[in-house]
């Protein structure tokens, strides 16, 4: 690392075995940093307001490959055979094809030697520098993944997509100026140190990426959680957040290890970027996660640091060890991780999982469900990241709607059953790069048919539902029995079994379980008293319902909501106290 020029000079050796059934005539290299090389890259062509971070980078970056040769071909220079730009996109250079002079047969190994320079941009999203803080991610030419059938999973860097590669063993030696602390995954060994610089070596196995950070103000806090050695790198001001991060790691490693499978590595690194580098926060890499947030977060009743830590830790399973493709199926990593995080936060903090103050508490699930309803009827959830159009759409559907659908399935069909099905999927596809069809097959085996259909429709088609009570009629009493009739409607492509609760004028409350509501149907309920209120889903299990405002209907005027009236009056009178002229 040249900390003054914000560049990393590197040499790399990639040893790749063709484990597919088909000879390989070419290779593909991800060169993600070239997204910041010029304003016409695929990444920067997208409007800032549509991206995750709306900032522009004032200082460009890039990945310059200066040498590329293959040992098995007599150290043949492959640089002339390296494409200058991404396929069909002359303005982008993040997806580079290497045309091989001879095919690599199935089972054969090719060893590539590369020399490169990573030019770090001013930090905009994930990778770059801010002051002396260096987020060195996607910094080396990374081989794309090849499937068993010989298909290369290559793609240029899209603003809405993340990263994908294949598992391998990494042996990385990092050289930085003295005074800089390195935060990297895996176990470290000091290799050499002189008056101005020092070198550390990091070895990790069965991972598909390697990101590291260097800063001259890191303070390291370590802890041992069972077999996992955790290290948190943060500034001195972040002591409170560091403590809460470690508590969350301990809780998360224990819970996720029990629910899914034990964390499969010996080390876990957490980086808390400073406030001026917050664009590097909230990100996951194998064995390394980044969090973020101001130093006083822990003291103001917000559980943001816990939520962020658990979310990124959850990615060590859904992204890290399971390695679904983040570009093609973001729902399988962000969606499942968001569900896992919400479950953990609910277990830890109950209904105060997001905001917890003496005056007011809000659960994460409540907010997530609200957001999910705003992104209904937008199409299938299992689509490639770029197809979501903008980050708000991706976040609303993948981070909020999919976990809300899972919450609904859990509430209706059984939480334990859902958790077991997802755990089964996780265990079966460890280190296996599953796709959506693998996930659905696991759900089909583990869940009821109705639950499976809800998932399948939502992932592949457009899953939405709106249950409503649309009418109540009461015929005059004959022989002391009133002919109460309640009209129900179900709109949408999803269906769930549902409870109907009826309150009568004599105070009696009764419930009926309905396996399936037709698009429109009448329920007859003869009884000695008139119906007063009919409510569908009184326990609010179906969080994915589009409109909660039509699930109940009263006969006659609404009840007086004196508590609600007092709350409104109170809020206005507080404003009055401070605003009276």
């Amino acid at each position, binding site marked *: 690392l040249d900390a003054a020029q914000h560049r990393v000079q590197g040499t790399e050796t990639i040893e790749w075995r063709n484990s597919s059934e088909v000879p390989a005539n070419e290779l593909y290299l991800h060169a993600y940093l070239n997204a910041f090389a010029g304003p016409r890259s695929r990444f920067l062509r997208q409007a800032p307001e549509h991206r995750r971070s709306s900032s522009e980078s004032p200082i460009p970056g890039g990945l310059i490959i200066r040498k590329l040769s293959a040992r098995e071909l007599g150290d043949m220079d492959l640089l002339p055979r390296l494409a200058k730009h991404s396929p069909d996109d002359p303005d982008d250079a993040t997806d580079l094809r290497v045309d091989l002079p001879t095919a690599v047969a199935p089972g054969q190994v090719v060893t590539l030697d590369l020399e490169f320079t990573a030019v770090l941009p001013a930090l905009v999203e994930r990778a770059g520098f801010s*002051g002396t803080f260096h987020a060195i991610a996607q910094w080396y030419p990374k081989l794309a993944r090849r499937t068993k059938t010989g298909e290369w999973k290559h793609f240029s860097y899209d603003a809405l997509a993340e990263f994908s590669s294949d598992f391998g063993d990494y042996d990385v030696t990092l050289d930085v100026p003295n005074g800089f602390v390195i935060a990297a995954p895996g176990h470290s060994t000091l290799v050499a140190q002189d008056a101005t610089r020092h070198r550390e070596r990091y070895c990790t196995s069965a991972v598909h990426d390697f990101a590291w950070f260097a800063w001259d103000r890191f303070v390291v806090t370590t802890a041992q959680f069972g077999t996992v050695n955790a290290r948190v790198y943060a500034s*001195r001001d972040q002591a409170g957040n560091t403590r809460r991060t470690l508590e969350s790691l301990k809780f998360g490693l224990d819970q996720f290890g029990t629910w899914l499978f034990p964390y499969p590595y010996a080390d876990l690194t957490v980086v808390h970027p400073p406030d001026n580098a917050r664009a590097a926060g909230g990100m996951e890499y194998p064995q390394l996660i980044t969090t973020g947030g101001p*130093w006083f977060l822990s003291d103001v009743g917000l559980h943001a640091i816990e939520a962020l830590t658990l979310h990124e830790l959850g990615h060590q399973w859904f992204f890290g060890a399971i390695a679904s493709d983040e570009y093609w199926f973001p729902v399988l990593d962000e969606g499942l991780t968001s569900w896992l995080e919400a479950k953990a936060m609910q277990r830890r903090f109950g209904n105060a999982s997001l905001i917890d103050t003496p005056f007011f508490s809000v659960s994460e699930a409540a907010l997530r469900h609200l957001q999910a309803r705003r992104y209904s009827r937008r199409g299938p959830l299992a689509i490639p990241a770029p197809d979501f159009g903008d980050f708000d759409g991706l976040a609303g559907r993948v981070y909020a709607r999919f976990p809300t659908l899972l919450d609904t399935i859990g509430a209706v069909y059984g939480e334990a059953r859902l958790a077991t099905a997802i755990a089964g999927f996780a265990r079966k596809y460890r280190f296996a790069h599953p796709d959506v069809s693998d996930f659905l097959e696991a759900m089909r085996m583990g869940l009821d048919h109705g639950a499976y259909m809800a998932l399948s429709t939502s992932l592949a088609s457009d899953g939405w539902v709106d249950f409503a009570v649309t009418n109540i009629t009461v015929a005059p009493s004959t022989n002391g029995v009133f002919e109460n009739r309640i009209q129900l409607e179900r709109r949408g492509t999803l269906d769930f079994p549902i409870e109907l609760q009826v309150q009568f004028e004599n105070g009696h409350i009764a419930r009926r379980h309905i396996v399936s509501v037709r698009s429109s149907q009448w329920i007859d309920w003869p009884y000695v008293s008139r119906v007063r209120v009919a*409510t569908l889903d009184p326990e609010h299990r179906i969080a994915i319902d589009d409109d909660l*405002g039509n699930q109940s209907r009263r006969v006659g005027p609404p009840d007086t*909501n004196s*508590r*609600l009236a007092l709350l409104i009056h109170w809020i206005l009178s507080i404003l009055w106290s*401070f605003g009276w002229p």
Partner: protein
Amino acid sequence: MKAWRKPREGYRLKLLLFLYASSIGLIWCIATPLYAALSNAAVFDTDVGLFRAGSEWLLVVLDAQRSCISALSAALLMLGSFAYAANTVLSTAAWILLHSKRLLAWPSIVDHFGDCIGKLVIIAVGTAGSVAVLLGCWYVVFGSIGAWLEPILGERGTDWVQLATFAIALCATAAIFIVADVTRAVVVTDRASTRFALSTALQICGRAWPKLGFDAAGRVLSVVALQASTAWAVTHFQWLSGTALTFFAAVVSVEASALLSIMLRVGWMAYLLREVQRFKRTVRR
């Protein structure tokens, strides 16, 4: 000039109750349509259910009625503006009625009111404008010093400095409000022009700023503590989701806080009127 006479017993209490009842009436002008929109939501079947489980279902109701509240927002804004304007009239009436024990005839009070209302409106507008400019300047400073200080002081140090700028801006805002109130007191006492009243107010504030500052701070902190402790009690003991008795406790607490807040405000107004009288006597000597 007639000597100032102490008001009759019960006069201020009647004034307080009148102001409290008027405030309630104006608040309910805005609250009623909002309440009608929210209480129409069919997503709950009991009043109490809204406030259970961390008020989660209250969020659902707010979200379910979002479009309804948006549709009402223009009407609510108009109602709010009307209520604020009406409260300005009430406030002017309060100033004059507090001062009026020196005057005996109702026609004089009405005449006094007509003389002062325009000037007090000008003071209200001027106060709002001054505070807006002040806060705008503060915002620019607040935003620009962060990047400059952070490499030197770190995150925590920078945040503390930024907080200090906020505190300074808050003190300056408080000073503007105090000067505005003293100006109102001068206008009501002397029927002076707004400009003359402002210059007199600045002289009074210049002479008595520690006393005025501490008194104002004490009253504001009392209102804050009152409202905060009411909020704590209601939420901590879950009075809104409890029995009818606990709900009654919530009602009593909320209304008592509102009445006490008005009392603190009226006490401040009476205090300023006395201070202006004291200043006038000093100047005359």
